[in-house]
């Protein structure tokens, strides 16, 4: 059993997480045969945790996409019900090219703004706990003391914050613009999805 090390966690946070939104959009256009996008993402993280070392990975984004693709292919091969055409379709998949995504462009301040915006979406108590813990860098015990609540309540709020932020990142994360470009589904109309913000 490999438990993720501190270094690997930092590496995932720095190099993988920012590409997750884009990966999800890409996956949502593929035949996944019995798998959810969520499943593929979780399996992919598991593989990245299990790697002996990551120092040789020059391009983490491409690597992430390749890992996800291997997860999809394995599920397809295992399922044995898949038609030949689906399999060749996936195998001929081109991992999307390395456009300088917004994550690469959005350095420094913009990224901080995004972090601030995400924190702002949390429910009030949860947000207060998370702000004290992350912005003011208090320990969970100190947060409990400051707010006059129990440590286990603080822990619960932290768990909720991590869960909400994880799904915020998945669907509106650092690759928002890339995600908007990578879509070929014609059925949804822009009106239905609220793109007409000006009105």
């Amino acid at each position, binding site marked *: 059993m490999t438990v993720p090390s501190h270094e690997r966690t930092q590496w995932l946070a720095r190099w993988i997480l920012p590409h997750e939104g884009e990966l999800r959009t890409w996956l949502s256009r593929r035949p996944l045969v019995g798998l959810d996008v*969520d499943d593929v993402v979780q399996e992919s993280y598991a593989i990245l945790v299990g790697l002996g070392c990551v120092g040789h990975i020059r391009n983490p984004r491409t690597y992430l996409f390749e890992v996800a693709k291997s997860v999809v292919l394995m599920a397809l091969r295992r399922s044995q019900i898949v038609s030949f055409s689906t399999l060749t379709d996936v195998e001929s998949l081109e991992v999307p090219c390395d456009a300088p995504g917004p994550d690469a462009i959005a350095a420094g301040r913009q990224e901080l703004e995004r972090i601030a915006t995400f924190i702002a979406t949390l429910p009030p108590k949860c947000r207060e706990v998370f702000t004290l813990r992350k912005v003011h860098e208090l320990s969970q015990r100190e947060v409990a003391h400051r707010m006059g609540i129990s440590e286990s309540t603080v822990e619960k709020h932290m768990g909720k914050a991590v869960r909400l932020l994880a799904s915020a990142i998945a669907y509106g994360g650092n690759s928002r613009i890339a995600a908007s470009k990578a879509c070929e589904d014609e059925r949804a109309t822009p009106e239905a999805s609220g793109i007409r913000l000006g009105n």
Partner: protein
Amino acid sequence: MKTNAPHLKHPESASEIESAAASWAARVDRGKLSFDEQAALEKWLGADTRRLGAYARALAVNAHFDRAAALGPGFSPEDFEEVRPPSPALHRRHFLFAGGAAVAASIAAAVGVGMFSTGTAVVTAKGDTRRIALTEGSAITLNTDSHIEPRLEERLRQVDLVRGEALFDVSRDPNRPFVVHAGDVRVRVLGTSFSMRRFDDGSVEVAVLEGHVEVDAGSGLHPYRLRRGERLRVFPGGDVRTEHVSHAALERSVGWRRGIIDLHGMTLAQAAAEYARYSDRRIVIADQAVGAMKVTGVYSTSDPLGFARAAALSLGIQATPTAEGMRLDSR
């Protein structure tokens, strides 16, 4: 790599796993685990590779927000409330049911929004699209590699299309006309939706999706009145061509708002040129006969190489990856 077929052996859903993983991450964030807790965590993790993945992801999310310390003690989350990303409280399945395009569109909407009044140049990089709201209620969506300069005055709303392509959704205001300039070509509207593009050869195209507009082609002659479903192109010498276009075709022609590109009726060479607007990854076609082949279909603007590969498959030609992108040759 060891992965299970999770949906068959483990009925636990991905989101249940995610909740449990977040709780574990919060527990670890609190402090060192006791011996028993450590054992319980390892037991939980060992039962399904997805749990390990979800746990690693939860830790990464938590670590990602360590950077929030840089916001400083003066940080007040309330200040950041208006520009919300899609609410995380909405369950993700809702997004998936809504369809990929809806997700992407709502995400795009959440991002490229700013209120612009006057004197601000708005520019997009190659591959980006951006929607801006003007303070008077109109909205402009910029396509890839484009540049506009809005100037809102009391009696007149003006926008310079300096480069590229944009879609204008103009709010109706008879007392305050909306005028778009593209070099000598001027389009005057009351309330409508139309797109406008400047081509590299100097020509300008205007297409009306709703309402009507008046186009002054810069020739000193009468302006052209264009209605819904009409498209006009002004060539550098002053020649003007107008045509009727079906509403569906018009909608497709502004598919770039949603990251899609309609290549219907184009040759492969034209499609390659179209993709060059969106990406520096080039599709190179040396062979004229190959370049003249017809393509059709709707593709993602962000995936030129995927398009090249698909075209090669369907046309029976050879696609070879190169340092710059993809080369297409006959077999």
